């Protein structure tokens, strides 16, 4: 099937720029979004602890992935240090909450802002270099931050890690997973709205221009340095927010948790979900989180036939992520979102879709 540019229902013409810039492209999209959020709110108490945990983690990783997607998908930079920024947010929030008794309601956004600052510092090389060189520079930032976590006892608790209490809202402690889920859902909705809004603004278009053709963008008056560093800041903001949510969810932040592997997983999420797509980031986060678990059950079943598989469970989980990255890049480089669009297009254009 040839390329179908995201078909719209018949009669849905856009006659003004305001129409073209709406938050939701179609009424269906708006209704679907509201429906999904409402369904999650209603269904959350009934899904059981396992799925509740999964939903919380998907939400947290989705926020981080949305942030990385601004940097990679929208601005066309590459970051191999997103996992470290995520970790920085987790430590920063725990540090603020335990050392200064900042209420968690404040410490989470504050941690996100601190991560923004760190991200912008490490984004400074982006002013001069791009592409491959930038990827390697962010690789260095990953190792430098990781080293910092292990070394800075005052900040991260060093090898012992940091404790993070469950957040409370004016004395109302979010002590159960269910309550925490609503908090995460709130931040996911805020992030999705924030980013979709950003992308239809002047700044968002500038970011896209930097990605598509940076020379033309500069000729058009887009300040390249500003927007490159800014995109690092924005992406780190969401990484920090997600990290803070992660830390307070587990109630403990470990130094070992934020290796290069986490950064790679974030990149895998946005590639599998679809570069430059907000909804794709959420899909990708769900995919990367659920894939290892699906693989684990598959290996358990296979272990009944081949007992040798039993020992390989942990490795198969990690291998599946690597394999997913490779297979998606070869067979579906535009990600799950593109696949969904194709399915939708083939329904809409039914007799002519092949």
């Amino acid at each position, binding site marked *: 099937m040839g390329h179908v540019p995201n078909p719209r229902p018949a009669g849905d013409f856009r006659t003004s720029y305001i129409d073209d810039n709406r938050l939701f492209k179609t009424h269906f999209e708006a209704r679907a979004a509201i429906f999904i959020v409402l369904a999650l709110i209603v269904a959350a108490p009934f899904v059981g602890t396992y799925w509740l945990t999964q939903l919380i983690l998907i939400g947290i990783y989705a926020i981080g992935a949305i942030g990385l997607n601004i940097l990679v998908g929208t601005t066309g930079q590459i970051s191999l240090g997103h996992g470290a920024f995520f970790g920085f947010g987790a430590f920063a929030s725990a540090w603020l909450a335990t050392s200064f008794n900042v209420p968690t309601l404040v410490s989470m956004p504050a941690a996100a802002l601190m991560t923004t600052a760190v991200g912008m510092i490490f984004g400074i090389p982006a002013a001069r270099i791009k592409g491959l*060189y930038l990827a390697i520079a962010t690789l260095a930032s990953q190792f430098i931050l990781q080293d910092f976590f292990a070394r800075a006892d005052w900040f991260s608790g060093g090898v012992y890690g940091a404790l993070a209490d469950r957040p409370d809202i004016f004395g109302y402690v979010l002590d159960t997973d269910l309550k925490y889920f609503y908090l995460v859902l709130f931040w996911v909705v805020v992030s999705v709205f924030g980013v979709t809004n950003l992308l239809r603004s002047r700044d968002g278009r500038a970011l896209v221009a930097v990605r598509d053709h940076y020379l033309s963008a500069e000729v058009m008056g887009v300040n390249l340095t500003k927007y490159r560093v800014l995109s690092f800041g924005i992406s780190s903001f969401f990484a920090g927010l997600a990290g803070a949510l992660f830390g307070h969810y587990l109630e403990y932040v470990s130094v070992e948790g934020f290796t290069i592997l986490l950064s790679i997983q974030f990149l895998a999420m946005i590639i599998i979900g679809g570069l430059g797509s907000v909804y794709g980031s959420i899909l990708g986060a769900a995919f990367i989180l659920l894939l290892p678990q699906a693989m684990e059950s598959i290996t358990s079943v296979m272990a009944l036939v081949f007992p040798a598989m039993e020992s390989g469970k942990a490795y198969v989980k990690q291998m599946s992520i690597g394999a997913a*990255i490779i297979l998606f890049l070869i067979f579906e480089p535009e990600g799950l979102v593109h696949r969904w669009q194709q399915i939708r297009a083939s329904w809409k254009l039914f007799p002519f879709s092949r």
Partner: protein
Amino acid sequence: MKWDLLFQLLVNGLIVGMLYGVVAMCFVLIYKSTQVVNFAQGEFLVLGAWVCLALVTNMQLPFFLAFIFTLVFMAAFGIIVQTVILRPLIGEPIISVIMVTIGLSIFMQSLMNWIFGNDAKRFPDVFGTSDIVSIGGLNVEVAYLLSLVLSIIIMGVFFWFFRFTRHGLAMRATAFDQQIAQSLGISVKQTFAMAWAISAVVSGVAGIVIGIVNSVSNSLAFVGIKVFPAVILGGLDSIVGAVVGGIIIGVLENMAEYVDGQWLKIGNLYTIAPFYVLIIILMIKPYGLFGTKDIERI
């Protein structure tokens, strides 16, 4: 100041740096001829070491035979990776190419963990390598000397190959301009496959050498990450730069160790120092010492 310790570390740095240089050379070879940054270079190295070790210990082959088989295996492996994984991605954006090698690296890492286990294993003592010889008052293990000699031989062969053979010339031509090379009858596909094969073979040799010097374990893949500071310092597309960068990073690491141990006492400085250097170089001289400057014309 402890002069003997300083000198000892300097020599160590030089020897380790030569090995970094060899791996960096493989990395640059792939980048220069196929424009792919291979994040799985470290895993290639570990794979070579494991395969050779398995042939020696499990199959009881003599070391020399095992070595030859490993080289053949690595060449085949390099060609397979290039044709199956990287050929479909020609013309895709740079992030795809980077990510596919990263995916390959975590795939290989966990597969090797599974097959060969998590523990470090030692090579049987083939050359009496744990003997210590004294050169000018310095105690140097034979294994280190061996690795030094082997690194120099590899570099010499590289030089000879690119300078004086037909295939080397074809490869340089492809690196210079793929379209012109193709129009002159060079098979670009073959050249790409050959670049990966050579790179995999030489990484395998480096892996075996490092395996003999230390011991074989999956953590050796970290050399693949250490290569980045080296190649950025030398310039991403310069083979001479890779060698020089590798040596500088090796020496720098050991100097950091010395400074750390003598004065700073913060510990573990030598693993992280190359990355600080990397950031600084990228800020002041992004194309490295010998790299070609990317001049863009509008």
